[in-house]
């Protein structure tokens, strides 16, 4: 009796087995061997995703169908995050119990990669829920006094969001009330993505975690939440008409980011509010983007996933890393020619075509966010003189693996910027008319 698995299921199974083997290996070997095992497993998973079909060839989209682009982002970020850690000293990584951290990281990356394979509302909910469980445990394993506080805040709010999302899933599956279902799903999954009202764990969690966990939270945790919302949008008939609940959630989230970010002095918390801003823009794209909404939302999420790890890898590090960090912040602020600028420009064209007043409101809210991020750049490049006692404890420079991972993200930011120009010029409406939005979900 053979198992009749689809190509996508076979890929998922193979990737999960590889990552599970890496988790086992990491648990029973040294910290260094574990880091290599996790990196190797991620590389194998990426290779499997690229060459699934028996005949080989780079056909991830045909293997997975919709969601392949999201999977590519997940695997790409997973690769750079695991590569970043290879030569970093334990002090620089500050990840606590290395064995457990490595094992949990392997499992987390396996579960995150399963999200675009979900194929049904329930499987989607289960995989997103599993990501949250593992993320909370990953933070807790870091064993700093603040870690348990951060893990608790993440877990309790995310669990509340999960229950709301479960209710939304039941309503959507039962086809009872699509508008209410979408609102519940957006509020529930918004806890992961960084939308009001359940985003409150983000600043504290970002402030308390290592660079690796921070990069994962800022890129992948946010991505899975947005993917889940984006997955439901066309299935609940929102692509054809603007969704006011989503517009409201996106607008309020942007407002909260605009109020909090300029006043924030902790750069990690400021990055958290930047994630809230990016999530809000992606949801606005879904709400008002029409058929191109999923493409725009994906584009904005991809831009965030490319820039945020660069900021976390280089935050607080001396030398050239300071300039990379400044560049990451400028990218997030939407300065051209980096990717975020073009993604936002495409969104502005779409919103302008939909409701000019809405565009004006969004632009007004982006101004304080821009100012807040530029202020952080100034602080990073021209820090106030430190007393000698504090200067002695300066962070170590980037190891070459961390520098390489940062360079990859820098290249991604620039390359995506160059690739984003046509998207921004054409605007979402033209792309939607060309049918480019629907293939992503």
């Amino acid at each position, binding site marked *: 009796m053979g198992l009749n698995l689809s190509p996508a299921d076979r890929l998922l199974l193979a990737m999960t087995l590889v990552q599970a083997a890496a988790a086992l290996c990491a648990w029973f070997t040294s910290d260094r061997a574990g880091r290599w095992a996790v990196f190797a497993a991620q590389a194998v998973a990426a290779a499997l995703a690229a060459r699934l079909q028996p005949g080989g060839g780079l056909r991830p989209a045909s293997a997975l169908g919709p969601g392949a682009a999201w999977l590519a982002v997940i695997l790409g970020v997973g690769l750079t995050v695991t590569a970043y850690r290879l030569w970093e000293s334990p002090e620089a990584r500050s990840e606590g119990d290395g064995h457990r951290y490595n094992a949990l990281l392997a499992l987390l990356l396996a579960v995150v990669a399963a999200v675009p394979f979900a194929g049904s509302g329930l499987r989607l909910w289960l995989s997103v829920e599993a990501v949250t469980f593992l993320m909370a445990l990953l933070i807790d394993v870091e064993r700093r*006094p603040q870690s348990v506080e951060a893990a608790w805040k993440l877990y309790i709010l995310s669990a509340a969001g999960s229950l709301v999302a479960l209710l939304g899933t*039941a*309503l959507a599956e039962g086809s009872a009330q699509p508008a209410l279902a979408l609102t519940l799903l957006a509020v529930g999954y918004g806890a992961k993505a960084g939308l009001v009202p359940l985003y409150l764990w983000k600043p504290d969690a970002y402030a308390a975690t290592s660079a690796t966990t921070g990069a994962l939270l800022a890129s992948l945790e946010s991505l899975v939440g947005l993917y889940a919302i984006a997955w439901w949008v066309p299935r609940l008939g929102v692509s054809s008409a603007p969704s006011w609940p989503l517009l409201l959630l996106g607008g309020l989230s942007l407002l909260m980011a605009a109020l909090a970010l300029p006043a924030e002095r902790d750069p990690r918390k400021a990055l958290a509010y930047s994630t809230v801003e990016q999530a809000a823009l992606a949801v606005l794209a879904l709400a008002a983007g029409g058929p191109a909404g999923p493409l725009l939302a994906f584009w904005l999420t991809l831009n965030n996933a490319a820039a945020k790890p660069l900021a976390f890898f280089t935050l607080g590090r001396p030398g050239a890393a300071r300039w990379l960090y400044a560049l990451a912040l400028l990218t997030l602020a939407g300065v051209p020619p980096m990717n975020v600028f073009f993604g936002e420009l495409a969104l502005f064209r779409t919103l302008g075509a939909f409701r000019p007043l809405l565009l004006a409101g969004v632009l007004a809210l982006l101004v304080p966010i821009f100012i807040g991020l530029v202020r952080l750049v100034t602080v990073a490049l021209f820090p106030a003189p430190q007393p000698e006692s504090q200067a002695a404890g300066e962070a170590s420079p980037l190891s070459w693996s961390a520098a390489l991972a940062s360079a990859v993200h820098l290249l991604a930011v620039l390359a995506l910027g160059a690739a984003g120009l046509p998207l921004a010029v054409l605007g979402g409406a033209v792309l939607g008319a060309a049918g480019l939005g629907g293939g992503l979900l």
Partner: protein
Amino acid sequence: MEILALLSVSSLAAVLAMTVSRQLDSLIGLYRWQSLLLTGTVLALAVRLGHAHLFWTAGMALLLKVWAIPSMLRRLIHGTILERSELHFPLTATGTLLFASLLTVFGLAVGIGLGPSGTASLESAVGLASFLLGLALVALRSEAIAQVIGLLVAENGSMLLILALAPSLRLVLDAGLFFETVIGAWIMALLVHRMHLVHGHTNTSLLRELGSRWV
């Protein structure tokens, strides 16, 4: 029909009592009672609708919600100061009860229209009210274990709501039951234990190292 209504309303009364409960031990006991009443509701629905899988769901609820989770929570506080200490309210007891009552009325009013094809459904009304009261417990209580119980109560409410809206969605029910109740409660218990070890208390309103005030 009358038994179903009686079980649902009794379950809601247990949740209302939880909002003003002053001791963790009694909170856990009330959660056990509420879960037992929920199990009875699932059984009654199983008989009424003739869905065999609901018997399985009721059995799992009995095992996990009535026995395993309350026992684990009791074990967590056994021999600690939490067993006897009084829980604090951000509002007075009267204010809390008033707030909970308003939330209940709102939940009942909205939930009753959520039945299949817009039909009135007492279970969906009680489910939504319990769900909202559970979330209110999380927001109003600062003790970590009380917040865990709040989430579990919200999970009970969502289970009842899903049962009322779409009893055939067996997988949604079972997945919610397994994930939120078993794994979720285990992770929360682990974090509560770690909080106690690191900070010497489990009062979340005192967790201020990261600077942000939160619920």
